[in-house]
């Protein structure tokens, strides 16, 4: 009797799918799947050089290399010690410093890992009150920006190189002019940062030169939010949702679970209420109304697709219901003042949602996207007030921020010729200012314009002066985190290319002496730190990275219905006709500032899985009505402005709307990242910063090719990702372990003898799908920690992307309104690893502590292991990605060899940089494991202390995860969190019937639907309702398995007669 592995067949219409092609099972998709390397990765598509030419060239260069036998001589290497020892520095040991990344939504507190003076890795600072030690993709990748060889290096005046002395002379000249005219004609355009030192210098400037114009601009800023808060709660107040206190959450066009755009505390607060261990435990409920799929939408229990302009009418309808339910007069007055609008949403959805929110007064909250018009956000605050959120789920604080003008006011002054000297300190307004301001043209009319920037970008080309900006890891500063706590921004290294920071420029303009070291920050510090031992306080500030007790003072937000109603009365929504274009932040490169960051460019967008591109997202229904296919170039025009972008059909997108991410289509940075994606800024005006209505969309006839990572593999009808409702979990706790094939697994007999797993430490991991939002922080953290190379768009489209963590994204259900489920997949470290048995050279073997090891120096590149890997997590170095320029990979030895020196500095010295022809994959951060074991042993010394307790290790992905979904540790230690999680009933192994015993297991996702909502019966059933007819079993559903979780009788196995 030959046992046939009971692989389920691929269903014609799978319940879970990763691409529309898969859902439709197109012939191209099936063909691509059935090839050995589905993506044709193993084939030669040289283009410039044929295989024959290549072999000739190789032969020639080998012969040349042989002459002189240069390979036989041992190359001389040098040991280069310091001349003078550096304090704290121990060669070969990491040093950690607390610092923070200044961001528009508050500083991200960080711990920088430095190796011999080079920062190589950033982690969250777990000491900080808002941080749990998590980070996001931008913070993780910002270390690569520091070493970017394309950074600007020279001060330029009128396009000519000049030096610091000339700049200083110019600054002094401007200062002298300002002193004479009280600052008339002097203007600044800065980015939004809450920096106490910058505020202090600004106050000095304003005192000396009362007439300066100080403007702040963030293309993805929160000016509408600020206006709404000021009207609703008065000036000097900031409100933040506290999701840890919320049972019911409604997010309207607000991607608050995307940690890059909200904050660590928000994601942490939400996931703390989302994580349930025991069946029957309570959890929060999330309603989302949004346009395109965001991580927040993916987590939603109920999701409604609305056009961006419908947020107002939607909230109005909701507010009406809530006003009736709660009898709140203030809310009713705001609703009455709010203009009516078109809404196509299901009224029952709104009614039931309102009922549910109103049923939990003080424990529910409505959050509205900060890009939405102020009146819409104020309506949201009115609803919150009616729900009793103030002081409970909506926390208020008194904030102090200096007054600043908007970019429109600055542009008006420039147009009127009132700006003589303009400083653009950071930012790239020529590229990203609202198109109707014509900022680039206005700049030409400013006699002296100085641009301080990391790159010689679009703005640098339009200004008279360009000054290289110091990266935040190169200069002293300070910044407040979102809660107001003052964080230190400490330099880790001297400016690589002589950059200066904005504080130094402001300081010189204020006429102060040149600062020495941290003097500017220290001066501010002594003002805010209060009395006492200042030196000790300063040391503590630098050591822990922030000053305790400097958070904004809490103040219960007092809702002012009159202010909100006034906003609502004045609000004139744009008529919603034609197609709406929503301008969204890019999940990968923000507003364009990270456009030259290869790690981020190559990180697939969480929903579309597109790399090195943005796209005009349209819903399947709209695509059908417009006759569009993915890749069709579109021309979108509104108010006489137009942009072009390629369409991508996005399941779950609102109909009659297009979403396009900002930040792409940059020029002037580097030949690899120029002209990547499509620039959407030209369509964006001061009137429509969030979305443009009444847009005409037409096909141009041209085609564009996307490099997506989603279509590379298929789930083949297996239940890799699992979810259930809370109710089902309570009734049937072991559902995750008996789902699909797992209820039918016969006892397995292994044919192989396996290495003994006898080490006291046995490493394992769990990923909690209930809290994983798919934010990609782990993906980039892994890339930074493990020296994972980037490969470029062309290689990604051939399926050769190297990221060790693949953030899978599944859709379930109807293509127009599916459910979205993210799942991070990395090497599962199978105890019975299929890759190990096929390696002809023992390059991949098992260790006694349960790691599936990869010895690069043994690997000969047969790729058998990748073929035999059930998870498809092995990555092969088809080229010398670390050594050759990405656009000349196919030139072989003809291309320039070697990595830019600055990029070499960014590498983690504890991880081998892999070469062409070797396989690699997730190692469970073995360098950290070994380091921890060694530290443990060194501490024990010649004693028996190494026997007691276990070394403590965090993997890079675990450390970065803002929602604490990834837990890594020693599964032998019953006290460890991972061991406890593995005991939870929702813990399951993927492809259990293969008996590979993966060490990485998943905790099934639990959903909390409101059964009164329309479509609630589908929520939480992404795997489809159990149907056992197909498995040759009785119709008794899942209850039978609940009673009998593991003991699947042998008769359940499919047996085929021997051939």
């Amino acid at each position, binding site marked *: 009797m030959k046992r046939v592995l009971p692989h389920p067949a691929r269903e014609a219409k799978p319940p879970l799918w990763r691409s529309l092609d898969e859902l439709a099972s197109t012939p191209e998709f099936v063909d691509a799947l059935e090839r050995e390397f589905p993506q044709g990765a193993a084939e030669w598509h040289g283009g410039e050089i044929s295989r024959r030419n290549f072999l000739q060239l190789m032969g020639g260069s080998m012969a040349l290399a042989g002459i002189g036998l240069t390979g036989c001589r041992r190359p001389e290497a040098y040991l280069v010690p*310091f001349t003078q020892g550096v304090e704290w520095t121990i060669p*070969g040991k990491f040093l950690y410093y607390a610092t923070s990344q200044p961001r528009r939504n508050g500083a991200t507190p960080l711990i920088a890992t430095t190796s011999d003076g080079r920062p190589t890795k950033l982690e969250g600072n777990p000491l900080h009150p808002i941080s749990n030690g998590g980070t996001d993709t931008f913070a993780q990748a910002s270390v690569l920006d520091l070493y970017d060889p394309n950074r600007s290096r020279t001060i330029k005046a009128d396009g000519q190189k000049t030096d610091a002395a000339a700049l200083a002379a110019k600054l002094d000249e401007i200062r002298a002019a300002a002193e004479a005219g009280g600052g008339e004609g002097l203007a600044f355009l800065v980015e939004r940062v809450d920096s106490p030192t910058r505020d202090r210098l600004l106050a000095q400037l304003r005192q000396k030169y009362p007439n300066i114009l100080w403007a702040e601009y963030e293309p993805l800023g929160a000016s509408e939010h600020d206006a709404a808060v000021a009207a609703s709660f008065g000036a000097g107040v900031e409100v933040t949702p506290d999701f840890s206190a919320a049972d019911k959450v409604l997010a309207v066009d607000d991607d608050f679970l995307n940690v890059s755009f909200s904050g660590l505390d928000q994601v942490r607060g939400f996931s703390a209420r989302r994580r349930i261990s025991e069946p029957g435990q309570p959890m929060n409920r999330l309603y989302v109304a949004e346009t395109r799929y965001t991580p927040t939408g993916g987590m939603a229990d109920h999701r409604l697709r609305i056009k961006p302009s419908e947020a107002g009418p939607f909230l109005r309808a909701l507010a009406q219901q809530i006003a009736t339910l709660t009898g709140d007069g203030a809310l009713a007055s705001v609703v009455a003042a709010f203009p009516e609008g078109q809404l196509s949403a299901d009224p029952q959805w709104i009614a039931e949602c309102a009922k549910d929110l109103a049923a939990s007064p003080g424990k529910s909250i409505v959050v509205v996207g900060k890009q939405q018009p102020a009146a819409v956000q104020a309506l949201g605050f009115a609803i919150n007030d009616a729900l009793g959120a103030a002081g409970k789920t909506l926390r208020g604080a008194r904030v102090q921020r200096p007054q600043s003008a908007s970019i429109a006011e600055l542009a008006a002054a420039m147009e009127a010729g009132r700006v003589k000297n303009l400083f653009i300190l950071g930012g790239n307004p020529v590229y990203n200012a609202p198109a109707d301001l014509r900022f680039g043209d206005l700049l030409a009319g400013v006699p002296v314009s100085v641009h301080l920037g990391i790159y010689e970008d679009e703005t640098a080309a339009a200004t008279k002066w360009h000054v290289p900006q110091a990266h935040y890891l190169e200069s002293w500063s300070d910044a407040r985190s979102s809660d107001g706590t003052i964080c230190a921004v400490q330099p880790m290294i001297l400016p690589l290319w002589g950059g200066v920071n904005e504080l130094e420029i402001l300081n010189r303009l204020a006429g102060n002496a040149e600062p020495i070291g941290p003097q500017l920050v220290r001066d501010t510090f002594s003002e805010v730190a209060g009395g006492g031992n200042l030196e000790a306080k300063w040391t503590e500030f630098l050591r822990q990275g922030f000053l305790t007790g400097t958070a904004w003072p809490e103040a219960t937000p007092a809702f002012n219905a009159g202010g909100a109603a006034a906003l609502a009365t004045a609000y004139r929504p744009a008529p919603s006709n034609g197609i709406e274009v929503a301008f969204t932040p890019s999940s990968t490169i923000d507003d364009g500032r990270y456009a030259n960051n290869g790690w981020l460019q190559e990180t697939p967008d969480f929903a579309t899985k597109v790399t090195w591109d943005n796209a005009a997202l349209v819903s399947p229904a709209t695509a059908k009505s417009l006759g569009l296919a993915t890749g069709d170039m579109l021309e979108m025009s509104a108010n006489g402005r137009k942009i072009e972008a390629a369409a991508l059909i996005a399941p779950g997108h609102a109909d009659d709307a297009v979403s396009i991410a900002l930040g792409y289509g940059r020029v002037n940075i580097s030949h690899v990242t120029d002209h990547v994606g499509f620039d959407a800024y030209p369509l964006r005006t001061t009137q429509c910063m969030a979305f443009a209505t009444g847009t005409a969309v037409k096909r141009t006839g041209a085609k564009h090719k996307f490099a997506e990572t989603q279509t590379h593999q298929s789930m083949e009808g297996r239940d890799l990702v699992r979810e259930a409702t809370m109710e089902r979990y309570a009734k049937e706790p072991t559902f995750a372990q008996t789902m699909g094939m797992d209820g039918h697994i016969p006892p397995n007999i292994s044919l192989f003898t396996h290495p003994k797993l006898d080490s006291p430490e046995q490493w394992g991991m769990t990923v909690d799908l209930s809290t994983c939002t798919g934010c990609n922080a782990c993906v980039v953290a892994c890339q930074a920690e493990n020296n994972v190379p980037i490969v470029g768009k062309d290689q990604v489209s051939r399926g050769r992307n190297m990221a060790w963590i693949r953030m899978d994204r599944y859709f379930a259900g109807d293509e127009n309104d599916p459910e979205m489920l993210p799942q991070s997949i990395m090497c599962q470290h199978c105890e019975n690893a299929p890759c190990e048995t096929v390696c002809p050279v023992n390059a991949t073997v098992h*260790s006694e502590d349960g790691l599936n090891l990869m010895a690069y120096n043994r690997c000969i590149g047969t790729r058998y292991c990748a073929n035999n890997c059930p998870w498809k997590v092995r990555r092969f170095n088809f080229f010398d990605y670390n050594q050759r320029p990405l656009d000349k990979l196919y030139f072989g030895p003809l291309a320039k060899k070697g990595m830019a020196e600055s990029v070499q500095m960014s590498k983690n010295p504890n991880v081998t940089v892999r070469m062409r022809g070797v396989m690699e994959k997730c190692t469970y951060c073995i360098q950290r494991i070994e380091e921890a074991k060694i530290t443990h042993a060194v501490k024990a010394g010649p004693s028996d202390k190494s026997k007691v307790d276990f070394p403590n290790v965090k993997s890079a992905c675990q450390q970065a995860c803002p929602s604490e979904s990834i837990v890594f540790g020693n599964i032998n230690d019953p006290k460890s969190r991972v061991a406890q999680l593995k005991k939870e009933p929702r813990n399951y192994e993927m492809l259990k019937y293969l008996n590979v015993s993966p060490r990485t297991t998943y905790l099934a996702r639990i959903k909390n639907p409101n059964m009164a909502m329309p479509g609630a019966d589908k929520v939480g059933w992404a795997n489809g309702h159990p149907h056992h007819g197909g498995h040759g079993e009785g119709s008794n559903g899942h209850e039978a398995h609940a009673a009998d979780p593991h003991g699947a009788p042998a008769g359940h196995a499919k047996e085929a007669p021997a051939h």
Partner: protein
Amino acid sequence: MRSAEVAERFVNWMANFFPRWANWIPLKLLLIVTVLGAVVTGGIWYYFTPKYTNVGYMPDQPAPFSHAIHVEQLGMDCRYCHSYVEVAGHSNVPSTQTCMSCHSQIKAQSPKLAAVRASWETGTPVQWVRIHKAPDYVYFNHAVHVNRGISCYSCHGQINEMPVVYQAQPLSMAWCLECHREPEKFLRPPSEIYNLNWRPASAQEQLAMGTQFKKEWNVNPPVTCGGCHR
């Protein structure tokens, strides 16, 4: 003509030129080539190994530093200069400052120290030529070895008697594994780690002592790839 006839005529024609013993030439040649090939292959296999190519590597250094004088004659401890060996993976080479802390007073004008003085004056580091080098994919950690009973001597040899440092051991993987598989043959009393002249009384005594240390200290050197290759 039939082909057999042609062949016969050809053989007869050839016989006029070559004597009978010539028939063995191809076979003998083949034998010689095989033997030669085997010898060359075997030779390369055996001799082109770190044991022969690396042991004894003794490059010229910018300053002729003598461990024999500093350690053997003056009695300095290894850790005076290699100060971080107990805490870090790398055993640091001393900074110029360390050299100058003595040599600003002692032999301050010696021509042999020209490179060190130049470094001190200009601030450019001395470029010592590296002798002991593991490949980039090998992560060796000094701290864990010296803290757990392995002496400098085990890898660096009688370095305290070397006027000029050379590589004493092959540092090949097989050589590493000799100890990782049987650490009891090399473990020392903690007091003798930096005493490079210490020897066990006998092999049996070493084995008895090493076995005891291995058990007491819970010494389990890794023998899987991941222990050194990351």
